[in-house]
């Protein structure tokens, strides 16, 4: 355990030092990403105004709050992509990573976790500007802040598990971009990335209850934007933990097969 903590701290330090050097590039990237939520926000603000100030239970200010928090959650959700897996296998980097006495996925989690600290710091001024333009309304309790601070890391871990699983498909085949795009399409609809889940038809909402996606977007955002009771907040965290746990189990299982495949065909 101590050895993992040591590894995580060292690894996060490296990635923070690296990413600070690239603050400008990081900023450009973040600004580029902001167009997506702004488009959604404008569309739903227009609708809410047309209907006299609210749509699907969200006021204009609540929509603004939703999509501004969205930008932070989206940044937390950036993890090692399936395309990255394809690259690391093709370039032989995975071989070098496999020579270390530590699981490569630990390396990914630690590296991106360090990066997140830089991202959160860079996000604060962006959030201030967006708030000044779009005037969100918040009603935040301190308990929500605590749970939010946990929930964004839960979202990060769940999405890491999902995309690692997806990425491992590249151990078997390289023609996978269509599968990845299908996944991203599903995620867009079922996670709350496109619209708050409560605007979705009832059957979509109940479907999303059985899937991990909404715990990576809708739940963390709703912690701050919605009005959940303490019990709801904490049971949400438990759900996230459950998904992370099952993710780890499935990941380990598939990893065994993946490595078998890798060491059979070359590295």
């Amino acid at each position: 355990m101590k050895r993992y903590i040591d590894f995580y701290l060292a690894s996060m330090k490296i990635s923070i030092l690296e990413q600070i050097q690239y603050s400008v590039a990081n900023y450009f990237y973040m600004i580029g990403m902001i167009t997506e939520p702004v488009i959604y926000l404008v569309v739903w603000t227009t609708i809410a105004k047309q209907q006299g100030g609210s749509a699907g239970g969200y006021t204009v200010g609540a929509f603004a709050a939703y999509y501004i928090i969205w930008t932070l959650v989206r940044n937390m959700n950036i993890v090692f992509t399936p395309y990255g897996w394809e690259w690391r296998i093709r370039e032989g980097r995975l071989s070098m990573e496999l020579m270390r006495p530590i699981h490569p996925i630990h390396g990914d989690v630690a590296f991106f976790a360090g990066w997140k600290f830089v991202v959160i710091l860079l996000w604060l001024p962006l959030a201030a500007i967006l708030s000044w333009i779009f005037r969100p309304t918040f009603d935040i309790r301190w308990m929500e802040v605590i749970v939010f601070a946990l929930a964004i890391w839960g979202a990060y871990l769940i999405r890491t598990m999902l995309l690692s699983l997806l990425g491992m498909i590249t151990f078997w085949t390289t023609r996978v971009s269509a599968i990845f795009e299908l996944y991203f399409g599903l995620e867009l609809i079922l996670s709350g990335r496109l619209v708050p889940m409560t605007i979705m038809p009832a059957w979509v909402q109940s479907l999303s209850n059985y899937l991990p996606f909404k715990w990576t977007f809708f739940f963390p955002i709703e912690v701050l934007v919605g009005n959940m009771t303490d019990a709801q907040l904490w049971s949400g965290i438990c759900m996230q933990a459950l998904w992370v746990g099952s993710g780890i189990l499935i990941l380990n299982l598939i990893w065994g097969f993946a490595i078998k495949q890798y060491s059979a065909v070359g590295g």
Partner: protein
Amino acid sequence: MNPIKLALTYLRIGVLNEMQYRVNFFIQLLQSFISVATGLIGLSLVFGQVTTLAGWSRPELLAVMGVHLLMGGVIRSIIQPNMERLMDDVRNGTLDFALTKPADAQTLISVREFRFWQLVDVIVGMVVISIAFFQLKSSLGIFQLLGFLAALLMGGVMLYSVWLMVTSISFWVIRVQDISNLFEGLYAAGRWPIGIYPDWLRTGLTFLVPVAFAVTVPAEALTNRLDGTSLLFAFGMTILFVIFARGLWLLGLSNYSGASS
């Protein structure tokens, strides 16, 4: 060399090249369907709440989506690949090969790449537009069609000019790779009619990145919202964009010092 002949030659090479990877056609088709599906879901969510959005009915917004898809296909098959190759060439100092050919350099760098399968989006876009038209139950007049085609052409030329301007900047500032990302993000704004955006954003989407002219104006032509004055205005803007782009390109080129830099 005749620029049209030149373009056609490269086009043929591009098609022949891509025909080797025919599986990509199905992958592209699947990806187009995914983006149409998510677009339709977005529309149905909006119209689950309201009957018109900023004065646009559901089939009209479907037409906007079709135009957006069509123009996106054009960007990804011709404009973006050529401009990204140009950026790479400037960065690696390998542009010399293009500059030493006996043809206008701007024409040459604009036609070297062609991603044939991306045109699937153009076809799918046209299908979506046709469906929208069918739903609108209106007939397409000859002037309406001409106006649409003219607007589409001008929009394409404007987008190309903006890309060329931004890419020309790479002659001075080498790190512009993230531009593609930013551009894609901004182009996504065109999925909805430009009128819904706040003033500052609308101005940007009209004059800086002319998504308004590339998508909304052609869609307006289709849905009978366009008058001659706007079309004339678009024409004037196109000329301006082309002149600016040409100027910046030439200026950048004179600044290019090749691989030795």
